[in-house]
């Protein structure tokens, strides 16, 4: 069994999956509006939130991410018509399952951010980072081997 001790001044590492059509554009808008959010949020661009495989979420946690957030178009606005509806079901089931395994529920999140919602994107990220920071390091799902030799 592994032990990780939380370092002083913990800054979480956040992986954000953003759909190309709404949320990535929303993040761009946050940028062009100079609405800041913590630098520890890093965005991966996917065509649609429905491209996000639960395996990616787990992979992120295994590799040591402290929080994973998935952003897509608002329901009904999906560029691919139905993609985010599938995402919603998939993630609802995955998140509830992780909670069942005892994983902190605030480490995962699904949000709808449109291309016009730069402010929302920034607010969501600030809030998510605050929640994950409060939780501390991801000890339950990270694989210690990843950081071996550092």
């Amino acid at each position, binding site marked *: 069994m592994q032990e990780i001790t939380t370092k002083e001044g913990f800054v979480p590492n956040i992986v954000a999956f953003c759909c190309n059509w709404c949320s990535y554009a929303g993040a761009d808008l946050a940028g062009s509006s100079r609405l800041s959010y913590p630098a520890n949020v890093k965005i991966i661009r996917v065509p649609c939130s429905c491209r996000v495989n639960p395996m990616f979420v787990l992979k992120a946690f295994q590799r040591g991410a402290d929080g994973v957030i998935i952003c897509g178009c608002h329901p009904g606005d999906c560029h691919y018509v139905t993609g985010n509806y599938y995402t*919603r079901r998939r993630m609802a089931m995955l998140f509830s399952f992780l909670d069942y395994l005892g994983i902190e529920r605030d480490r995962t999140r699904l949000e709808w951010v449109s291309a016009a919602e730069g402010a929302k994107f920034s607010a969501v990220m600030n809030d998510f980072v605050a929640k994950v920071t409060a939780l501390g390091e991801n000890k339950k799902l990270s694989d210690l081997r990843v950081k071996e030799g550092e």
Partner: protein
Amino acid sequence: MKEVESKMLERAKVLLESGEVARVIGWRKGAFCHDPEPASFESVDELKDFVYDYFCGANLSKYLIAESKKEGKTAVFLKPCDTYSFNQLVKEHRINREKIHVIAVECMAKLDIGKIKAKGLSAVTGVEVDGEQVKVQTLYGEAVLSKTEIVLAKCATCNKTHQVKDEEIVLHERPVRDVNRFAEVEALEQMTAEERFKFWREQLSKCIRCNACRNVCPACSCIKCVFDNPQSGVAAKANDDKFEEQLFHIIRAYHVAGRCTDCGECSRVCPQGIPLHLLNRKFIKDIDETYGEFQAGESAEGKTPLTEYRESDLEPKDVLKEGK
């Protein structure tokens, strides 16, 4: 059960003799009284070892993926729970329905030899079931056990009925069990997150990655499993007391979510006695509560809960109910 067995044997003979089917899938006697094995019988001669008793717990439906590809028709004996897996596999185009002749057989719950041994009985040489009572002979003496206490976990909460039958051999009506199959899941849900984590850590760290759960699972019928495929990014073989078993079991449970019929084979076969069915049942319970009751395998048609949606579906944060 003897009566049912002889009827089954009789039918198997007729089907093979008449050439109606090329083979019959059932169970063959083992070395002891409690270890029958799934078997294919291709001639009346081979049927001499045919058996159907209280230890025929194995789900035969997954074998039909291969059997339905063979020349000629295959007859199979399916218990009520097995028929759900059968339907699901037909739905997923894994079994060619036309080539299978389903004989629905009675099941009065199957026994778990592990549970019998856990009662302190060793060297079991004979088991006789008489209603609720089970008489167990061992080299060290005899004992009488209550059947309820020694049935397979999957049988304890089962109220399944045959969903598919081309013919049936059912001589007795099985009483309906008044049990909540989600009771164990609910108990876990009531715990704190830390307690749950501890529970699963303890259980999952027993895992030896033998893949018995995956290989027996009728929903895990992938030609190439992601865990065996170096290209998948999650392939892994190590049994490492860190993350891999968790990853394996989470992904496996997710992959069968909405398709798992709750046949309970995963828990039956786990050499380390991990209650794997509690993973799958959580998905079943969540799906039932969030998207409406759904029993995989009730039909060989239609979508599964994770391949459909409603515009009014709940957001993930609303699905997570406040626990402790």
